[in-house]
C-alpha cells in the first residue's frame, strides 16, 4: 500500500471538467489512495450494442473528482465514502447518473442521445428537438462564434450558416451590418427579425457576443411563421446565457488588438500626376499654352501620399467578466463587458466604445411556478467620421486630392495659422481668386482629408435598456400544460452632437457677417439632438407538450402585443465665438440668426394572435402547422389584418426499421414546408396623404395610398438532413423558393405632380430561388479533435412582376423590371475604345456631326442605328450575389486549439462610383495607377480611354464602372493554448487559463478595384476600407 501511495503521489494529477464544452482536456487517471473514507469503484462502459466506449467521463457530481474510461472501456475511480452518485457522460450519449449505493463495481450502458446530437433548438416561442424539426432551422455553433473575437454579433455570424449572408457596408467602427437570409426579398428593409430572450427587436449591435448561449436562424416559412408579421426576411432567435445549477464560476477574458487598413489603391505620385494632367489638358483641345507644362518642376510642389497620411494603426480592446452559478431554486448569471476601438484614421475621431451589463436571474418559486428576468444595459458611444460617399467623404477626398499639395502649410507661409496648419485651397495666397489668390482651375477644390479628420466632432451615443420579465406556470398533473407571460422592454436614448468648426482658407465668399472666415463650415455651428424610443412587448403563450405511447404532441396558442413610441428634440445654432471643447453647447451659439430647433414623434403598434402545433408519430413521421394573424397600425383600417399560415412535414427515414441495420447511418430525414410570412417595415403613416408645414408654407409632402396592405412572402422549402457515424458527419441540404408579393415600395411619381416624397405602394413581386448546403465533419473522441463546417448557398433573384401603372422603376444606375434581378444595373455597354476617326465615322453613321474623338469610350450600339442614345442602354450587372459560402476549420490537440475561417461571395457585381470620380472624371483630381495605361494613340489600348478634361464618354453610366465584386477572404485565424492541465492552477482555484492570438481579414482574393468588395451599397462611393487586425488575448476561468 505504501509503495503504491508514493507512486500515486508521483503520478497524481487532477482532472478538470468543463461542463459545457464538448472538447475535453487532458485527463489522467486517479489511482486509488489510502485515505480513510475512500472507496474505489471500477467498471466498464458499453453502448447499446455492447461495444465498449473509451474516453467516457466518469465523475462524482458536485466535486472535481473524476476519470475517463480507457481504450477498453474500463475505469477505476476513488470516491469519498459519502459520495452518492457517479455520473457517466460522453458526447452523443445520454448522460447517466448512477447511485452508488455501496457498490464497488458499476457497469453502465450508455444510450445514444438523439437530443444531444441535434440539440434542442429554440423555435418560435418554444423549443423543439432538432430531430423532429420539419422547418429549415439552422442552429449556430456558438463556440465558433466566440472565436471570432469581433465586437458585434452580426460580424460573428458571417459565413457560419448556409443561406445567411452577412456584409459590412463599411469598416468604420460602429457602423451597421446587413444580414440577408436567402436573398433580397423586398425592395425596402431586408433585415431579419431578431428575437432576444423572447423579445423581438430590429437591432443587434448592442448585444455582447460572449453573452450568447444559443442562436438559431429560422429560414423558411414554417420555422419563421410563428413570427409571421415581421418575419418575411427570416428570424434569428438568440438566447442569452443564464445561470446553471452548479458550482459558481467566474470567467474573465481580455483581448487587445491592432488594425491596419488593407487593400488600398495605388495613387499617382506627383510626377506621374503632372504628366497625366498635362496630357489631359492637351487632349481637351483647349487653345493656348498648357499650364501644367509650365508648372512642372515647381519648387512648392509636395509629393503627398494622401492615403498613407490618412490611415494609421488602430487599436481595440475588450474585457469581459461573467459570474454565474445557482442552486435548484435560483440560478443567476451576471456579466459585464467593455469594448473599445480606435479606428484607422488619424487624429482618433473615429472611435467606438461600448459598455454592457447583464443580469439574468431565474427562480423556481414553487415546483410549478417559475419566474425570471433578463436585464441588459448597454451604452455605446461612437465618434463618427463620415465613412461613405460624397460629403464630407473623408476617404473620397484622400483619393482625389492631388499629390502636389502638401498636408500642412509651411510655417513660413503668411497664411499659416497655429490652430489650422492644414492646406485647403491649392497654393493659397489671398482671398481674391481672380487675382491669383489660389489655383483651383488647375488643382481643383478638394478638401484636405487630414484636416477633416482633425476637425470632425460628431459623437453619437446610444443608451439602451433591454430586458424582459417572465412568469411561467405549469398546470396539470404532469406539468404538460404551461402558461407563460413575458413582458419585454426596449428603451433607447439617443444623443447626437455634431460640432462644425470653421476652418480652411478664406475664399472671399460667405454672407457679409461671415466675411474673412475660412470656407469650411462657414459659419461654425453646433447641432445637437436627443431622442428616445420605447417599445413594449407583451406576449402570452399557452403550451402543451405531451408524449404518450408513440405519439408526441405539442400545441401552442398565444397572443402578442407590441407598442412603440419614439420622439426626438433637437436644436442648432451657428457662429460660435469660442470653439474650445468647453463651449460646444447650444447656449453659446449666436442668437441673432440661423437658429433652429425642432422636435417630433412617431408611434406604431402591432397586435397578433398565433397558434402552432406539432405532431410526431413514433419519432418517424412529423408534421407542424402554424397560423398567425397580425394587425398593424401602419395600414389603413380596411387592410390592417394579415394572415400567415404555414405547414411542414418530415419523415425521419433513419428511424424506420428497414434502415436500422445501417448503423453507420445515424440520421436521415426528409422535410418539406410551405408558408406565408409578412412584412410591414415602412414609415409609420405611409398610407396617408400628408401635408407638411415648412417654414411658412403648407405643402403636400406625400400622396397617400389608402389601399396599402401587408407585403407577403410565400416560401416553399424541401430539405434533407443526413448524419453518418453517430453524426460525426452531418449534412443538411435545402432547396427553397421565396416569392414576395405586394412588395412595399416607394415609388417616385412623375415630377409634374410637384416635388413630393415617394408614395409607398404594393408594387410587384420578387422571387428568390436557391439551394443551400451545410456540411459538418467532426471528431472529438481522439486526442486530436477537429471540426469542419462548410456551407454554401446559391440564390437567384428575379423580379416577377410590377404594379400595372409602372412597367419599370428607374433609379440612378439601376432599373427594376420584370424578368431581371432586383436593382439590376442599367446603362450603356462598353465595347472598347475608338482608335481613329474613320472608325468613329463609320460606327456613328447615324449621327450628324458626332462629337466623339479617338481615344473615347465606344459604347455598344444595340439597335445598330449609328447613334448612341437612350435606346442603347441595357442591363449591365447584378448586385444580388448568386453565391456565398463559408468554411470553418477548427481543431485542437493537447491544449492547443486552432480555428480558421474562410468566407466568400461569388457572382456579384457592384457599381464602383469611386472609380468614376477618381479615374474617369473631367476635373484634375488624382488618379490611380491604372490610368497610366490610358489610350495614347492608335492601337495603344482597348480598355482605358484617353485622359481628358472633356467628356470621353465617362459621364455616361456604363459597364466600365460595373465590376465583378466576388471575393474570397481568409477572415479569421485563431490559435490558442489552454493551461488547464497544470495542477498549480487548480491550487489557486483557477480552472483554466487560455492564451490566444488571432488575426482577422488576413487576405482577400478579388478582382474588385474598389476599397472593399464587401460593400453592399448599390453605388460604391468610396467606403471606409476594411482593416486587418491582430489580437492577443487571455481567458481565465475560476
Amino acid at each position: 500500500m505504501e509503495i503504491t501511495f508514493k507512486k500515486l503521489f508521483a503520478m497524481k494529477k487532477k482532472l478538470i471538467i468543463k461542463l459545457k464544452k464538448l472538447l475535453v482536456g487532458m485527463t489522467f487517471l486517479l489511482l486509488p489512495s489510502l485515505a480513510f473514507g475512500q472507496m474505489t469503484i471500477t467498471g466498464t462502459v458499453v453502448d447499446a450494442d455492447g461495444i465498449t466506449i473509451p474516453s467516457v467521463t466518469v465523475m462524482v457530481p458536485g466535486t472535481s473528482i473524476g476519470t475517463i474510461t480507457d481504450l477498453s472501456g474500463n475505469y477505476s475511480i476513488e470516491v469519498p465514502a459519502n459520495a452518492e452518485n457517479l455520473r457517466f457522460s460522453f458526447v452523443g450519449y445520454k448522460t447517466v447518473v448512477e447511485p452508488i449505493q455501496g457498490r464497488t463495481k458499476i457497469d453502465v450502458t450508455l444510450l445514444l442521445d438523439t437530443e444531444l446530437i441535434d440539440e434542442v433548438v429554440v423555435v418560435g416561442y418554444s423549443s423543439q428537438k432538432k430531430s423532429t424539426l420539419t422547418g429549415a432551422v439552422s442552429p449556430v455553433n456558438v463556440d465558433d462564434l466566440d472565436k471570432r473575437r469581433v465586437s458585434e454579433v452580426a460580424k460573428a455570424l458571417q459565413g457560419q450558416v448556409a443561406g445567411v449572408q452577412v456584409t459590412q457596408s463599411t469598416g468604420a467602427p460602429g457602423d451597421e451590418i446587413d444580414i440577408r437570409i436567402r436573398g433580397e426579398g423586398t425592395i425596402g428593409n431586408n433585415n431579419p427579425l431578431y428575437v432576444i430572450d423572447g423579445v423581438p427587436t430590429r437591432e443587434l449591435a448592442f448585444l455582447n457576443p460572449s453573452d450568447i448561449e444559443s442562436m438559431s436562424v429560422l429560414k423558411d416559412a414554417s420555422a419563421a411563421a410563428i413570427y409571421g408579421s415581421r418575419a418575411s426576411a427570416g428570424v434569428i432567435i438568440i438566447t442569452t446565457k443564464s445561470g446553471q445549477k452548479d458550482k459558481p464560476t467566474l470567467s474573465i477574458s481580455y483581448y487587445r488588438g491592432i488594425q491596419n487598413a488593407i487593400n488600398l489603391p495605388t495613387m499617382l505620385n506627383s510626377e506621374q500626376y503632372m504628366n497625366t494632367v498635362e496630357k489631359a489638358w492637351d487632349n481637351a483641345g483647349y487653345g493656348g499654352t498648357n499650364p501644367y507644362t509650365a508648372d512642372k518642376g515647381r519648387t512648392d510642389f509636395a509629393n503627398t501620399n494622401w492615403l498613407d497620411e490618412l490611415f494609421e494603426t488602430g487599436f481595440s480592446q475588450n474585457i469581459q467578466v461573467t459570474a454565474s452559478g445557482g442552486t435548484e431554486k435560483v440560478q443567476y448569471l451576471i456579466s459585464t463587458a467593455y469594448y473599445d476601438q480606435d479606428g484607422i484614421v488619424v487624429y482618433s475621431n473615429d472611435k467606438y466604445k461600448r459598455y454592457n451589463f447583464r443580469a439574468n436571474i431565474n427562480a423556481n418559486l414553487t415546483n410549478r411556478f417559475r419566474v425570471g428576468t433578463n436585464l441588459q444595459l448597454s451604452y455605446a458611444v461612437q465618434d463618427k467620421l463620415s465613412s461613405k460617399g460624397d460629403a464630407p467623404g473623408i476617404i473620397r477626398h484622400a483619393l482625389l486630392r492631388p499629390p502636389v499639395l502638401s498636408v500642412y502649410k509651411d510655417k513660413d507661409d503668411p497664411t499659416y495659422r497655429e490652430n489650422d496648419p492644414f492646406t485647403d485651397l491649392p497654393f493659397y495666397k489671398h482671398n481674391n481668386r481672380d487675382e491669383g489668390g489660389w489655383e483651383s482651375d488647375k488643382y481643383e477644390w478638394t478638401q484636405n482629408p487630414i484636416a477633416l479628420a482633425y476637425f470632425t466632432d460628431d459623437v453619437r451615443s446610444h443608451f439602451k435598456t433591454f430586458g424582459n420579465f417572465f412568469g411561467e406556470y405549469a398546470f396539470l398533473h404532469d406539468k404538460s400544460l404551461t402558461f407563460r407571460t413575458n413582458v419585454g422592454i426596449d428603451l433607447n436614448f439617443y444623443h447626437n452632437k455634431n460640432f462644425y468648426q470653421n476652418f480652411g482658407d478664406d475664399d472671399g465668399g460667405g454672407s457679409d457677417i461671415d466675411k474673412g472666415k475660412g470656407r469650411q463650415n462657414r459659419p461654425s455651428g453646433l447641432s445637437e439632438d436627443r431622442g428616445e424610443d420605447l417599445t413594449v412587448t407583451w406576449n402570452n403563450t399557452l403550451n402543451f407538450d405531451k408524449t404518450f405511447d408513440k405519439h408526441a404532441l405539442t400545441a401552442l396558442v398565444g397572443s402578442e402585443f407590441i407598442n412603440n413610441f419614439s420622439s426626438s428634440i433637437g436644436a442648432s445654432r451657428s457662429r460660435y465665438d469660442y470653439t474650445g471643447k468647453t463651449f460646444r453647447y447650444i447656449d453659446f451659439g449666436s442668437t441673432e440668426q440661423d437658429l433652429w430647433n425642432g422636435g417630433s414623434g412617431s408611434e406604431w403598434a402591432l397586435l397578433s394572435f398565433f397558434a402552432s402545433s406539432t405532431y410526431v408519430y413514433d419519432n418517424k413521421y412529423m408534421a407542424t402547422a402554424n397560423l398567425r394573424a397580425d394587425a398593424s397600425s401602419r395600414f389603413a383600417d380596411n387592410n390592417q389584418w394579415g394572415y400567415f399560415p404555414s405547414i411542414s412535414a418530415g419523415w425521419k427515414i433513419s428511424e424506420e426499421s428497414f434502415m436500422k441495420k445501417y448503423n453507420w447511418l445515424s440520421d436521415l430525414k426528409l422535410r418539406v414546408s410551405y408558408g406565408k410570412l409578412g412584412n410591414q417595415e415602412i414609415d409609420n403613416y405611409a398610407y396617408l396623404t400628408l401635408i407638411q408645414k415648412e417654414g411658412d408654407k403648407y405643402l403636400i409632402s406625400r400622396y397617400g395610398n389608402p389601399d396599402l396592405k401587408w407585403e407577403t412572402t410565400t416560401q416553399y422549402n424541401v430539405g434533407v438532413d443526413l448524419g453518418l457515424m453517430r453524426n460525426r458527419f452531418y449534412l443538411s441540404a435545402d432547396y427553397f423558393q421565396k416569392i414576395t408579393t405586394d412588395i412595399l415600395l416607394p415609388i417616385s411619381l412623375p415630377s409634374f405632380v410637384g416635388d413630393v416624397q415617394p408614395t409607398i405602394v404594393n408594387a410587384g413581386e420578387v422571387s428568390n430561388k436557391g439551394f443551400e448546403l451545410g456540411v459538418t465533419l467532426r471528431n472529438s473522441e481522439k486526442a486530436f479533435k477537429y471540426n469542419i463546417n462548410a456551407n454554401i448557398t446559391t440564390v437567384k433573384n428575379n423580379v416577377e412582376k410590377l404594379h400595372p401603372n409602372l412597367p419599370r422603376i428607374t433609379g440612378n444606375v439601376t432599373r427594376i423590371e420584370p424578368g431581371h434581378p432586383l436593382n439590376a444595373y442599367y446603362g450603356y455597354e462598353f465595347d472598347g475604345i475608338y482608335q481613329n476617326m474613320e472608325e468613329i465615322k463609320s460606327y456613328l453613321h447615324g449621327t450628324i456631326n458626332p462629337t466623339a474623338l479617338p481615344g473615347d469610350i465606344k459604347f455598344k450600339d444595340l439597335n445598330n442605328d449609328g447613334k448612341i442614345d437612350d435606346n442603347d442602354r441595357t442591363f449591365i450587372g447584378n448586385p444580388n450575389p448568386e453565391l456565398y459560402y463559408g468554411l470553418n476549420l477548427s481543431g485542437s490537440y493537447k491544449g492547443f486549439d486552432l480555428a480558421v475561417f474562410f468566407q466568400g461571395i461569388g457572382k456579384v457585381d457592384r457599381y464602383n462610383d469611386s472609380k468614376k470620380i477618381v479615374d474617369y472624371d473631367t476635373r484634375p483630381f488624382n488618379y490611380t495607377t491604372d490610368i497610366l495605361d490610358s489610350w495614347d494613340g492608335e492601337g495603344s489600348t482597348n480598355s482605358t480611354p484617353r485622359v481628358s478634361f472633356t467628356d470621353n464618354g465617362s459621364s455616361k453610366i456604363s459597364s466600365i464602372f460595373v465590376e465583378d465584386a466576388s471575393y474570397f477572404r481568409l477572415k479569421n485565424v485563431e490559435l490558442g493554448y489552454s493551461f488547464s492541465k497544470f495542477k498549480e492552477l487548480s491550487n489557486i482555484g483557477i480552472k483554466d487559463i487560455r492564451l490566444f492570438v488571432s488575426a482577422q481579414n488576413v487576405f482577400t482574393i478579388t478582382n474588385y478595384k474598389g476599397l472593399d468588395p464587401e460593400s453592399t451599397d448599390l453605388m460604391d462611393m468610396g467606403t471606409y476600407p476594411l482593416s486587418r487586425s491582430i489580437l492577443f488575448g487571455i481567458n481565465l476561468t475560476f
Partner: protein
Amino acid sequence: MKTTYKLFLLLTLFAFSNCESYLSKDPIGLLTPEQVNLDPTVTSVNYSVNSSYQLLSNTLNIIGEWGWDDGTVLRNDFVLHDIASGDMQKKWNPDGDQAWMDEFSNYSFIASNGAFNGIWSYDYEGVSRTNTAIDYLTDEDVMSKLNIEPALKNRLLGEAYFLRAFYYFDLVTLFGDVPLLLKPLVSFEEAYEVAQRTDKATVWDQISNDLKSAKSLLPNTKYSSDSEKWRVSKGAVIAMQAKVALYNKQWQEVVTFVSELEQLGFYKLNDNYFDNFSVTKEFAEDEVIFAYDHQEAKTPNRGNGLCALIGWGFVAPRDNFVESFETNDPRLKYTVDVENKNVNKILGTLDGSNKGNDDAPSNRIFIRFADLLLWKAEAYLELGSFDKSILLINEIRNRARNSISIDGSMPPTGTLPDRNLTSTNKTEIMDWLMHERRVELGFESHRFNDLKRWKKAEEVLGGYGFQSKHYLYPIPQGEIDKSGGTITQNEGY
C-alpha cells in the same frame, strides 16, 4: 387551482381587450388634407400663394440638396436660355466641371441631361403650388369659413392665376406639348391618369384664360400691395398678355396690350440703364414690372444663389456676345465687366460685391418696360408701320446713350446713333431690332426664345451645332420612365 385558472382568464381577457384601439395611430405632427381644409386660416391661405413664387427664384437647393446631376441645384434658366442662345458660356475658363452645361454650347445634349429634369421639376412644383392655392381660394366651403376681405382674396387669387400662367408659359415654350394640370391631385393613382401630354394650343388657351381672370382680380395700382411690392401687379398681367400675343404672332393684340399698359401711367424707361438691376434701387424705380425679390439673411433662404455660382467662375460671356456691342455702349459693362469678371446685372452691384454670396439680395428681373417697347416695335414692324417701329428702337438707344457709364462718365457723343427713321427695308429693321434686343436684354434669359420665335436659330446658331429638332427641348428622360411611357418624347430625341 381554481384561483389560478381565474387569474389566468382575467389575464387573457385583459391582454386582448383595449388593444385594438392602439392600432389606430394618428400621425404626430403631420397634417392630412382633411385637417387643413377643416381648419383653414387666412395665414395658411396667404402662405400658400406666397410659396408659389419661390420656384421663380435663384435660391439654391429649393428642391433636393446639391443635386447637380438632377439639375435641381437652382433654376436652370441661365443654361437653357442663355448658354443655349450663344451669348453665354459656362465659365470664364473652360474646364470639366459640370460638363452637362457645356452640352448646351454645342447642342450635344440628350434627354437624360439634368437641365431638363431641373426646369421641369421647378416649373411643375410651381404649378402644383399655384393649383393648391387656387383650389383653396375658389372653394366656397373653405372661403366661407374664413373671414377674409374680398379685396385680399381677389388679389391672392389674381396672383395665383398669373403665376400658373407664367409657369406654363415657360413649359410650353421650352417643351411644346406638356401635361396640363389645373387642380391638385387627390391620390397618387391620379398621377398616372393625368400623365398625358396636352396639345400646346390648349395650353396657350389656358394661359390666356388665366391671365384674363387675373387681370380682373388685381387692383389698379402700380404695386398690388404697398408693404409687399414684389407681388404680381396688374401691370405684370397685361405685360404677360402682350407677351403671349407676341409669341402667337397676334401683332395687333401686342400693340393693344402694350398701349393699355402705357395708359396706366405707372411705367417708363429709367434714366439710368443700371437702375433696373441695382440692389439699391429695388422697387424705387419705374421700369421693372415683375421681378423676384431676393432677400438676404432669411430663414428659410431666399437669397440669390446664382451669385455664388458667379463666384465659382460660372456665367461668362462668349466672345461673340461681347463683340456684338457697339463701341462705347455703356450697356456692355453694365451687363458684364470682362476685366473684373463681374456679371453686374445679376450681382446687382458695380464693384463685384455679392460675388460668391449664395444669399445675395439682388433681384431676378423677369419683365421690364424696355422689353415691352421692343415687343411693340416688333409688332409694328410685322404690321408694316416701320416708322413707329424704328421710333421705339431709337427710344431704347436714346436711354442707353444717356445713361452714365460704369466709370462715372457720359458716353461720348456719337455713341449709339439713332437708326434711320425713313428706312423701309424690313430685313434691315429686323436686324436692328434683333441687335437691340440682344444688347439691351443680354443675360436676361430672353435671347433663345427670341431666336426660336424669329426662326433664326439655325442661321445664328447652326455653326455651333443647332439643328431643327432643337426648337423643342426633349422631355426629361426621367419623366418618360416614371410615367411608364404614357408621356412621349419630342421628335428627334
